[in-house]
């Protein structure tokens, strides 16, 4: 196996809006954990950062026109071609942010099929933490993604808490989640995105099937 065959790509999709953003901070920590584990497993890692804030207008345009161009098209290709995805959203009004949802809405519905995905969310208090399980996880289940068992929620308090206060909760969850993603990404056989032209049946088959 050559190095390029062993290398893995992790795409981070972060829907934080502020600068700096705690959503992005969580996404980076999750990526660090996944990269460490992948490197321990012998895989060089490339990380693609996708900040949805920068793509907000193109996302709405694509929703209206039906096609993506420019940076948004490149972001979609990065996600589709990755070996693992880290998707992190702020919790807005009890669920994922609208921008976060819109990004997945305009992606090809088959693009995440079998894709290892690590879910993360941020919010003001821990009361929002189950949004990951009742809103974010079903979205990715619907898309046939291979979501890792551990999802990570970070409230404002988690960033300030000492290891003693939290029982090392957040860092430990980040480590575990990153490891789960890395192991799946390491095993992934990436066939690349499906080619609609290659899978088009010949017309004799189409005629026979009608």
């Amino acid at each position, binding site marked *: 196996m050559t190095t390029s065959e062993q290398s893995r790509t992790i795409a981070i999709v972060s829907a934080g809006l502020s600068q700096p953003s705690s959503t992005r901070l969580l996404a980076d920590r999750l990526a660090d954990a996944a990269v460490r584990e992948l490197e321990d497993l012998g895989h060089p890692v490339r990380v693609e950062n996708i900040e949805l804030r920068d793509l907000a207008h193109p996302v*709405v*345009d694509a*929703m*209206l*026109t*039906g*096609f993506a*161009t*420019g940076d948004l098209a490149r972001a979609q290709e990065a996600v589709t071609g990755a070996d693992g995805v880290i998707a992190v959203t702020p919790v807005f009004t009890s669920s994922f942010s609208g921008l976060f949802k819109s990004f997945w809405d305009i992606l090809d519905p088959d693009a995440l099929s079998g894709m290892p995905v690590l879910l993360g969310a941020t919010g003001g208090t821990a009361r929002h933490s189950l949004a990951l399980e009742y809103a974010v996880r079903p979205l990715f289940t619907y898309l046939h993604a291979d979501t890792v068992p551990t999802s990570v929620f970070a409230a404002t308090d988690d960033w300030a808490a000492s290891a003693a206060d939290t029982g090392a909760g957040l860092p430990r969850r980040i480590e575990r989640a990153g490891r789960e993603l890395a192991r799946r990404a390491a095993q992934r056989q990436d066939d690349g995105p499906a080619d*609609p*032209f290659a899978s*088009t*049946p*010949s*017309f*004799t088959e*189409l*005629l026979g*099937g*009608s």
Partner: protein
Amino acid sequence: MQFGIFSVSDVTSDPTTGRVPDDAERVRSMLTIARHADEAGLDVFATGEHHNPPFVASSPTTMLGYLAGVTKNITLSTATTLITTNDPVRLAEEYAMLQVISDGRMDLMMGRGNTGPVYPWFGQDIRNGIPLAVENYALLRRLWTEDVVDWEGKFRTPLQGFTSTPRPLDGVAPFVWHGSIRSPEIAEQAAYYGDGFLHNNIFWPMHHTRQMVRFYRQRYEHHGHGRADQAIVGLGGQAFMRKRSQDAWNEFRPYFDNAPVYGHGPSMEDFTQQTPLTVGSPQQVIDRYASFVEDVGYYQRQLFLVDHAGLPLKTVLEQIDLLAGEVVPELRKIVEAKRPAEDVPLNPPTHAERVAAAAASGEAGATHVGDATDPYTGTVAEGGRPNDPTHVTQEARA
């Protein structure tokens, strides 16, 4: 290369005045637009087919039949004829009738239609879109090429000894295009039959169009109709022009910003970069459209959408004048010089060329079937007698 216009027949409020034409005015505008395009020297007028507001073009052959009588040179076509929800028997009859009335100055383009609710209005199901397009078109072709058809399929009642009339003009079916934006299956269908393929790319980036056309060309060659570069290709297009580029931008912007399809979305600056929409001077339109042969190879038909988004009739007619007067002569010269070989068709086949080809290969069908007696009632057509020797078919003479 042929240059023409196509209309989706939308009734849209003019965003600069708030004025909305009624349905009758919009239909009459389309007739005026088509006649004007003929007088200005454009090659093609194609009407859409829609069965729901805000569109008025529900009956293409009625419209095109009238236009056949009042125009001289322009080829009358569709963009598109719904092969999914129309009964292929009616399509065979109506378009053969149009072919006769227009004396062969027509062709048509099959499309699936993308409005889900239309399917049940005509007793069909959108989930069968592709199978309907496949089965219906296979039957339509048989109805045109075979005099007496026995047929059984999935989507309509069987036919026993059925003859569609009038028989195609000179025994040769109209030329057919297939239009599709996203479905490789339709490009495959066009390639299989050696028909034309038009990619209506007006809302799509060129890299997508390029893939679809390349696939159609490869499959055309695979199915043995000629080389890939000899396949018959058409593209959609969209432009708004004034002599001065800035005038075009200022005038078109409110129509763009409020257009039904892309309005309130991307900026006109972005959209003109991402899609074939070109707003500017006639020279800018020439430059942009002259580049498309680099993307898809030499192609035979370029259609422009000019009468949408609430543009007033007067403006549309001015656009046709600019297109026919300033863009087409120069653009044609540039792109035709890029035709890769003499045996790559310059234009889509005309009726006369198809008749000559059919005669050469012995494939022309009958121009009349049966004698003058109605086989179901035994009655005799007016002016004829059973087995009247003056009613022999072309087939019988041959």
